[in-house]
């Protein structure tokens, strides 16, 4: 007689610890009136450049700050600090992504006062950050024109986990023969309906419309009635086929 394997049923979410912590962070941010935006992309897609420009332009209108994840250096934090807003580095060592516990630790003892907006720049990586909720309200995934139009198809999980996409380095689009329509279709294939913005952090093109989107999201969090008809840069190209 063959013995059936004896199974002990359990049901345990492996990432429960992170999820519980992320939920607690989200609750805390909400109570404090802080809208939290995280940025994910591959290394070199321009997260820091976009964030530098974002912080500079929002500084003065809103109380903003940024946490920035990096494996080893503090270079990004030093760059971002030039915008004049509080910036704190999270050095992850060998860890290829941020986790909720790292965000929590970074917030401890960081005396920034009340914030309207907190940005969290993840480690450059299109794989691992997808699994970890950081307690953010909005996840932005970035794709630079130099990377190729098929990035969304190669990394559907992270694109699917995001709330909006930003195509960066648009000033270089013509030089690298970037096929915008293909990129848009690929984004819409893996995340139908996702707003897409085109920006150049270098020239400032597209910044206004993207910042308007962010600030409207922020205001809605505060409970204000906000008109939803954001003129999304790319929606007209969405793959509604």
């Amino acid at each position: 007689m063959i013995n059936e394997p004896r199974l002990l049923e359990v049901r345990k979410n492996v990432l429960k610890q992170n999820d519980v912590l992320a939920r607690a962070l989200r609750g805390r941010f909400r109570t404090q009136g802080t809208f939290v935006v995280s940025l994910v992309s591959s290394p070199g897609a321009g997260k820091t450049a976009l964030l530098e420009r974002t912080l500079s332009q929002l500084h003065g209108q809103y109380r903003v700050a940024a946490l920035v994840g990096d494996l080893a250096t503090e270079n990004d934090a030093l760059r971002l600090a030039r915008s004049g807003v509080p910036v704190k580095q999270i050095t992850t060592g060998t860890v290829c992504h941020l986790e909720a516990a790292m965000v929590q630790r970074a917030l401890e003892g960081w005396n920034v006062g009340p914030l309207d907006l907190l940005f969290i720049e993840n480690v450059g990586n299109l794989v691992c950050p997808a699994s970890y909720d950081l307690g953010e309200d909005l996840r932005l995934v970035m794709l630079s024109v130099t990377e190729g139009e098929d990035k969304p198809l190669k990394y559907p999980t992270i694109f699917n986990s995001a709330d909006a996409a930003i195509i960066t380095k648009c000033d270089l689009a013509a030089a690298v023969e970037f096929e915008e329509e293909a990129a848009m279709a690929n984004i819409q294939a893996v995340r139908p309906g996702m707003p897409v913005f085109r920006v150049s952090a270098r020239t400032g093109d597209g910044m206004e419309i993207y910042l308007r989107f962010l600030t409207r999201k922020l205001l809605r969090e505060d409970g204000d009635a906000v008109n939803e008809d954001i003129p999304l840069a790319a929606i007209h190209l969405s793959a509604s086929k």
Partner: protein
Amino acid sequence: MHELSIAMSIVDMAQEEAERRNVQVDAVHLELGALSGVVKEALLFSYTVACDGTLLEGSRLVVKDIPIEVFCPSCKLPRTLVSMQWFHCPDCGAATSEILHGKELVITALELRQ
């Protein structure tokens, strides 16, 4: 490559459960969603490493792949995606982003030593 830290969490959780119930574990059963962000092969390899020197040493990780199931707003039915590169109903073609299954990373059972 975050599979090693995930494997270590799996081993920790299974070991804790095994100690609490005073049982010996031959295998850990896991549901792994296609959208979990975890690569199965890397996880299986990492699991062996993570088990070293623990009560789980020599145990197996039995992975059940969970496909992506979405709710089709047009058919008003759950549908299983054919490709994770195409979040559209395989039946009617409607775009959808309401995910019902596919993000699982869940220990479902411990297989006990006889």
